[in-house]
């Protein structure tokens, strides 16, 4: 489904991704781990089409197409979804209006009729329960006055509404208490299916207790330095990153920079 080859990307002349290779098949869940500043979030942003980042080399094939050629909105319509680490607020635009516009943009792209307000509300109510959000939040502005946890749940709700074929989750676990983590994880697990791939960017192992990945990759200084199964994450938790040749001070520095 997703094939990344030798991907290089920079921002303002600084190279962040220095040759990423990654194969993700439908039905798989991949976790990308690594110290802060290693390029995890950049990878997520580049795949979603944030043009703050410049791709300087490499290719990304998604469902047979050259992903990097496509505009952000076209990638989304083809099924790429990014759950943001820091979802932005859009004052005055209700969640309902925002999500309905998004759902209908995707339906339109697939040649399906638009969902009317009543149909949409029915669906939105069901899904909001799934992520434990009060349906009243649908009337509030997008992320306006949301707590950190609400924002993250809202991102997962959007993934459930839009049913992407590739869901990229950028630090979806950060800032969540244990209950919220459970809710979010349940939402993500509900997304798991044979025709969908999930790419999880995370700093912590704890998320992987709830969402068990098929593969774990360690990213350091813009490259994947180690790949393995679930057990790799546990090993990282126990031993840190240094045994992989990642300087402790780099990891520490990066952590403190966070």
């Amino acid at each position, binding site marked *: 489904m997703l094939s990344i080859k030798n991907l290089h990307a920079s921002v303002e002349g600084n190279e962040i991704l220095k040759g990423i290779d990654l194969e993700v098949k439908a039905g798989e869940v991949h976790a990308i781990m690594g110290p802060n500043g290693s390029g995890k979030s950049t990878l997520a942003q580049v795949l*979603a089409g944030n043009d*703050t980042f410049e791709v300087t080399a490499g290719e990304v094939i998604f469902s047979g197409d050259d992903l990097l050629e496509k505009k952000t909105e076209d990638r989304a319509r083809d099924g790429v979804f990014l759950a943001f680490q820091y979802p932005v607020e859009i004052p*005055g635009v209700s969640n309902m209006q925002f999500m309905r516009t998004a759902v209908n943009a995707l339906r339109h792209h697939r040649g399906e009729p638009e969902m009317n307000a009543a149909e949409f509300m029915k669906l939105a109510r069901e899904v909001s329960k799934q992520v434990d959000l009060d349906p009243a939040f649908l009337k509030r502005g997008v992320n306006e006055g949301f707590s950190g946890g609400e924002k993250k749940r809202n991102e997962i709700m959007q993934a459930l509404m839009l049913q992407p074929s590739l869901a990229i989750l950028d630090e979806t676990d950060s800032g969540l208490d244990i209950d919220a983590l459970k809710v979010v994880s349940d939402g993500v697990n509900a997304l798991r299916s044979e025709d969908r791939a999930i790419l999880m960017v995370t700093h912590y192992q704890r998320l992987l207790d709830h969402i068990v990945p098929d593969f774990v990759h360690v990213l350091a200084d813009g490259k994947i330095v180690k790949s393995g199964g679930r057990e790799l994450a546990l090993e990282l938790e126990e031993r840190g990153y240094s045994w992989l040749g990642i300087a402790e001070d780099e990891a520490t520095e990066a952590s403190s920079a966070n």
Partner: protein
Amino acid sequence: MATTDQEVTELIKREYEHGFVTDIEAHSFEPGLNEDVIARLSAIKKEPEFMLEWRLNAYRRWLEMEEPDWAHLGYDKIDYNSISYYSAPKRKEDMPQSLDEVDPELLRTYEKLGIPLHEREMLAGVAVDAVFDSVSVATTFKEPLAKAGVIFCSISEAIRDYPELVQKYLGSVVPHTDNFFAGLNSAVFSDGTFVYVPKGVRCPMELSTYFRINAANTGQFERTLIIADEGSHVSYLEGCTAPMRDENQLHAAVVELIALDDAEIKYSTVQNWYPGDEHGKGGIFNFVTKRGACMGKNSKISWTQVETGSAVTWKYPSCILRGENSVGEFYSVALTHNYQQADTGTKMIHLGKNTSSTIISKGISAGRSSNVYRGLVKFGPRAEGARNFTECDSLLIGDRCGAHTFPYIESLNKSAVVEHEATTSKVSDEQMFLCRQRGIDPERAVSMIVNGFCKEVFKELPMEFAVEAGKLLEVSLEGSVG
């Protein structure tokens, strides 16, 4: 986000949709202004003697007045002698009695604008007094209004048929001495709307006028007078579009509202005159004086405006709160892009006890435009317990536009309370990225974000207007963001 900037710029470039010229033979005066022109104008309109006197007085005074230059605006000086002061669509005999008699070319023009009179008539239940250039050509729903005792006609008719009301109220809120443009309008106003709602009557429908500037080089000088007698209620909608032109066209309208005891007037405007092209060429110069007087106790005047058009806008719909407990409101969305300039806001003059006013202003600047909020809140010595709340928000799209806020507060009464809030924000790259990542077109995203920003004002608009206003913003924004 260079790409987004570029995309936005592309979007902004979309041409003015309403830029077409209706081919109707116009009966126009040669350019130029003198007492003879005014006399001819008054004669064509079959006005009574008092009106000609009134106009000439205003004209003589106007000659001594100077064009104001305090606004944050820059434009080439207007040559008032290069303007034609009368233009009317040619008509066979008298005024058409029904839509069937209206020039089909004109009706097609309205259809192109998406405001077919037929549909409006049937679906919206709105009486439309359509002003095409300078003369009212179609008025609908006169009968149900007449049954309620509401007078809704062109100001020219009112001058002939209701001279007492006109003499009593015309110029009572905006005297011809008020300012340069009001003076000019008083001398040469071509046509406009007159509304009188009698005591205790709630106007059975929303009244609406569509203004449209058409003939080349023609100044348009609308005059609107709305009187709500004791305990009455009326909602009035004004909307405008204009065909594309190279020459700047001057528009200097005057609107006067009078609310007596316990009366309420709601005045809503959607203004979409030609703003000029993307290089700042052409476009309407819009110098408008709009003012309402809450004369009676517990009266209320509410202005809601959505301003997206004109090359230059100079407009301050205001309220004089004379009656005890009277209420003034101003809700405004002003959007500028390309080289548009807007200097707009309001004046709330608190004279009576316990008067209150609310100002919500939303300015949106895109392209290289300049958008100014200028507001005055004044409390007279007898305005015991008066209060005002002002909220001025500016939204910037891109980094080449400007937003300025000039709030003035003058208080001669210690018990008066003023609250003022102001914010400036940008349509951010992050917001755009979020929308696009969810599959939403950049153009749709900008429009959605801007509509969200304007929500507080849009909810004040009558339903059908709110929809139109949303669409208008979408067309007018035609891209923008950075």
